[in-house]
């Protein structure tokens, strides 16, 4: 999926801001560029003097000239070394700051952003896009300055040597080069944009193949994955080739324009020399200066390409930076005080796609300390409902109150730190078990960690590992079984000691014996907490003192186990099918 919106167009003024942030470095680089360029231009001048001297047979001071050339070159080299280093430093600083800025912004973005934008795109933005921008802003802009300066100064010098010759040279070169560069820029931009998208897809495809690696291997569908990958790979290749082809058709001809104008200058200059209107030294210096135009003019071409590339990258980065989190804190949001845990869903309507609501008007009041089990068929909206509590999404209609506060009126962090949630699919971080458990409370003591691990019935297992609590978990926790991961996630939620605890089918992979133990240990801990339990398992239901049955995005039944069984509705049906499924005890 491609995050479909037009990239921001006017990026240059914004890029300029990043440059301003490093104005000292930028100023120094600029000064170095100017000084370096002037030194550069002195060299043909010296050659001119030498040639004019030796032409008349005078070899006086010739070694002084030679040493001057050497000295000036070394000085020039030093200046350019400093310039390259400083602009490199600047580019890295800009990239680093931008990366951090984007990173922080990503933290603010809501679930829906991550539903929409794939991993590859974000990786591309945070790595290569930002590098492209950093390089462009720092080196390309000093390069632009130095090239412009060089062209201006060379023009002034050649005009002062011989105005009519300069006029000829300039009138041949400038229009041609301008036209070629402009055409190139116009054609290359859409190619860069499409290549960016394909490059991101390439990243995503690899990321996906790595996360789904086991199933790909087990099903023997390596070829399927490979075909998918290679399709994108081919796209990247085709688009790269198209931009390369464009480059091959453009740049050599810039050289041609310069070469031809230089030859014409010799012809025209030669005729002037016959009439003694120009010295041989002037003529040679003139053609040397003309040679000095080659690189700056060509660099305009490169700069155009760089600019186009940076423009695409910057558009993507700014697009992410400009993405407004859909779940946002109000400017006047208040700190949610420590709550008792009274939760009200008031006519809540929500769909990931607003046209296809998953929740179609949920009304539900949960009293402080109540334990509510949410039951319903697959896709009935149970998990979606509880995702609204920590404001991972905001409902399209209706509202949710917590101790009487609309949750949209309070600060996100004050809301979320009072809610402990154990997700349905567990994501563990590739760090030690200790760090995973203490993820939300990094300063937790060893005792606290051990306490919650014991409640989650994972302590004994952890102690059986060679590294105990310092054992590092494989990326997706693959060496842990599903049940072990769920138990770690329970411990991770418990350590926050939240007022509201949400268990989203979080013991589905735990064996029933262990589950029973967890439930018993939890009972004590959650006595005064409000708890939402999404479960498929009747055995977990016993933690709950109230059962809410969802069907097709609405609450259809609500009551105790016995009441609902007596009612003989959907709950009774679900209940029976599990009992029947068990072999009919």
């Amino acid at each position: 999926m491609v995050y479909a919106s037009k990239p921001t167009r006017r990026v240059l003024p914004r890029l300029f801001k990043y440059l301003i942030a490093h104005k000292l470095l930028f100023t120094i680089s600029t000064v170095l560029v100017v000084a370096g360029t002037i030194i550069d231009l002195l060299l043909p001048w010296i050659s001119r003097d030498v040639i004019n001297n030796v032409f008349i047979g005078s070899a006086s001071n010739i070694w002084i000239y030679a040493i001057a050339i050497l000295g000036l070159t070394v000085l020039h080299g030093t200046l350019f070394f400093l310039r390259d280093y400083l602009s490199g430093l600047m580019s890295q600083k800009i990239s680093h700051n931008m990366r951090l800025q984007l990173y922080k912004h990503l933290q603010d973005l809501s679930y829906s952003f991550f539903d929409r934008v794939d991993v590859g795109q974000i990786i591309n933005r945070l790595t290569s896009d930002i590098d492209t921008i950093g390089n462009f802003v720092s080196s390309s802009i000093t390069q632009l300055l130095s090239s412009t300066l060089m062209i201006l100064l060379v023009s002034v010098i050649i005009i002062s040597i011989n105005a009519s010759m300069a006029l000829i040279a300039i009138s041949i070169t400038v229009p041609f080069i301008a036209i070629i560069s402009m055409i190139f820029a116009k054609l290359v931009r859409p190619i860069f944009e499409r290549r960016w998208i394909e490059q991101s897809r390439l990243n995503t495809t690899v990321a996906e193949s790595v996360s789904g690696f086991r199933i790909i291997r087990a099903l023997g569908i390596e070829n399927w994955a490979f075909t998918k990958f290679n399709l994108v790979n081919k796209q990247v290749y085709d688009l790269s080739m198209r931009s390369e082809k464009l480059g091959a058709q453009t740049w050599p001809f810039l050289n041609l324009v310069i070469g031809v104008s230089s030859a014409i200058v010799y012809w025209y200059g030669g005729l002037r020399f016959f009439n003694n209107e120009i010295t041989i030294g002037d003529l040679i210096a003139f053609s040397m200066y003309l040679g000095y135009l080659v690189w700056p003019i060509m660099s305009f071409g490169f700069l155009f390409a760089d600019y186009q590339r940076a423009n695409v990258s910057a558009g993507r980065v700014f697009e992410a930076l400009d993405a407004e989190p859909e779940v946002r804190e109000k400017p006047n949001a208040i700190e949610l005080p420590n709550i008792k845990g009274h939760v009200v869903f008031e006519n809540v309507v929500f769909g990931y796609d607003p046209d296809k609501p998953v929740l179609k008007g949920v009304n539900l009041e949960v009293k402080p300390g109540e334990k509510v089990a949410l039951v319903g068929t697959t896709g009935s909206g149970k998990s979606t409902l509880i995702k609204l509590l920590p404001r991972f999404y905001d409902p399209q209609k209706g509202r949710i109150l917590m101790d009487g506060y609309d949750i949209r009126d309070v600060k996100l962090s004050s809301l979320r730190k009072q809610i402990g949630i154990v997700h349905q699919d567990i994501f563990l971080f590739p760090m030690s078990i200790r760090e995973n458990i203490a993820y939300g409370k990094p300063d937790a003591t060893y005792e606290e960690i051990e306490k919650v691990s014991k409640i989650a019935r994972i302590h004994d297992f952890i102690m059986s590992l060679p590294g105990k609590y310092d054992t590092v978990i494989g990326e997706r926790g693959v060496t842990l079984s599903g049940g072990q991961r769920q138990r770690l996630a329970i411990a991770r939620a418990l350590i926050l000691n939240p007022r509201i605890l949400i268990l989203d089918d979080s013991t589905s992979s735990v064996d029933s014996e262990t589950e029973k133990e967890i439930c018993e240990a939890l009972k004590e801990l959650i006595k005064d907490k409000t708890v939402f339990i999404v479960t498929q398992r009747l055995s977990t239901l016993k933690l709950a003192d109230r059962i809410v049955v969802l069907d097709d995005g609405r609450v259809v039944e609500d009551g105790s186990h016995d009441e609902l069984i007596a009612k003989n509705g959907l709950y009774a049906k679900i209940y029976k099918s599990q009992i029947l499924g068990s072999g009919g005890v």
Partner: protein
Amino acid sequence: MGWHIMHRVERATDEKPVEVPTSTLLKWFLKILAPMKFTILAIILIAMVSIGLNMVTPYLSKLIIDNGIMAMDANALAFYVILTILAIAASALLTALRRYLTAYVNQRLLFDLRRKTFQHLMETDVHYVTQRPSGRMISLVTNDIAAIGEIVTMGAIEFLVGASSIVGAIYMMLNMHLTLTLAVISTIPMMFLLTRFLAKKAREVFRETRVKVSQLTSSVEQSVSGARVAQAFTERRNIDVQSFERISRETMSTRVKAILVSSLIRPSLDSVRALSFAILIGYGGLLVASREFTIGGLLAFYGYTESFFRPIIMITMFYTTLQSALAAAERVYVFLNTEPAVKDTPYAKDLEINDGEIVVENVSFSYDSNMVFENISFKVKAGEILAIVGPTGAGKTTLANLMLRLYDPQKGRIMIDGHDLREFTLSSLHRATALVPQEPILFNDTVFENIRAGFPEASREQVENIVKSLGLEKLIESLPQGYDTIVAPGGENLSVGQRQLISFARAMLKNPRILILDEATSSLDSRTEYMLQEAMVKLLKGRTCIIIAHRLATVKLANRIIVLDNGRIVEEGSHEQLLRRGGLYAKLYETQFGVSIQPSVAVS
């Protein structure tokens, strides 16, 4: 977003600079470039002709000055000017062609390398891949390979071209003036030493840079994958920002070091060139003043000096890019040369699985030093449905991994239809088997394509049939665009239950002889699961099936149950037998159904 420990993990696995001898890498390049040898040959030919032209141009300028201008001959002047224009035009055309061909070789190489790396990835051990941050693989396929690409653009060809223009330029100069030539080229050894020194430095810093880039990519990947978890833990934010800042800062400082080295190169080489130029001006000027040499000759010498220093500088600059490319190539090379432990044996054959009888014989297995099984043996009869139950961590999933040969046991063997798994080619084994894993992984594609992934040749009709036979039409209908609904990255727009059902259909579409259900329905509500099981009764006929489950309701389908505890089989028998026995199974069963909820109420 939490990956603050990323770099520690990187250290824990094997992300350290690897060293592969340059000669090995160069040989490898030659090998991967071999299929494009004719294009490369054409590029070299074109380059040689261009060099010829480039050699002529300074000489033409000498002729313009000496024979045209100085001799005051307008006709000769016009003639040489026209010749010069022709030479430059021809050279531009050839350059365009060469650029295009070089780009072709370059992009083609990138394409091939990406393809090869991905292909190799698909053959790599499950263990290898799942133990490493996935950002590492992404960085390898994208960043590292892109860095290798530069080798060819500026690379081997530029080197050859450069070397010949140096020889050509020196030859032309020698023809004009011996001692002046020797004086001018006396700086070459200095240039050579300088290049070597700088290249060595560059290699070191670039190696470090590549590791950092990979780490950065990993940490970004990790943060995006864990973004949803991190959202719930607001206290975490600052720590995550700090650790990201650290890794980003480290990347920055490594790169700044690399920049320091690479920005030294150009100025130092330019200074050496200036020395040659000073010698030319000084000594050459003296020669002209004493009429031993012409001004046109001096100008031509200037042109030739340029035309041999330019390639030398190019080669040196290339040599540093090469260091960056070599550092990247090392990583790709090492990956491509990692032999998977689990692969087709030399005696493997494409075997058909007919009966689907599975025998596990004295199997021992451990992950690193963690023993999972010791000497475990059991048998699954053809067409039998066997349930494996047991506490979490008992080794059930590992058993599934072994039976599919995703891992090899350290001791003992597993046989299907009397053949050791290692006698099967992996593709023939996986063609006849299917796994429905605990964690349903869906791809960012349509629901239809996700189901079809199990059997990519399947038609729309076959997919619809399997969905119907599993009773899942309702599920598909409930999705916004039915079969064409795009599964969001990570499957976030579907519930885990829905994902499990799709993953189930995907496995069944393969029409496997042996089916392994690893907690395949753990997130389904009991009603949906019940309906699915009804459908399964028919579908499982004639297949060998292994059901791994905690929810004993799921076990109902099985003919026989094995209870696994601590890597050993502790009980075995039918549901009734095991209940009667009153062991671990009975205990598990009771806790699940017997305690607070009175089952008898419901059944009545």
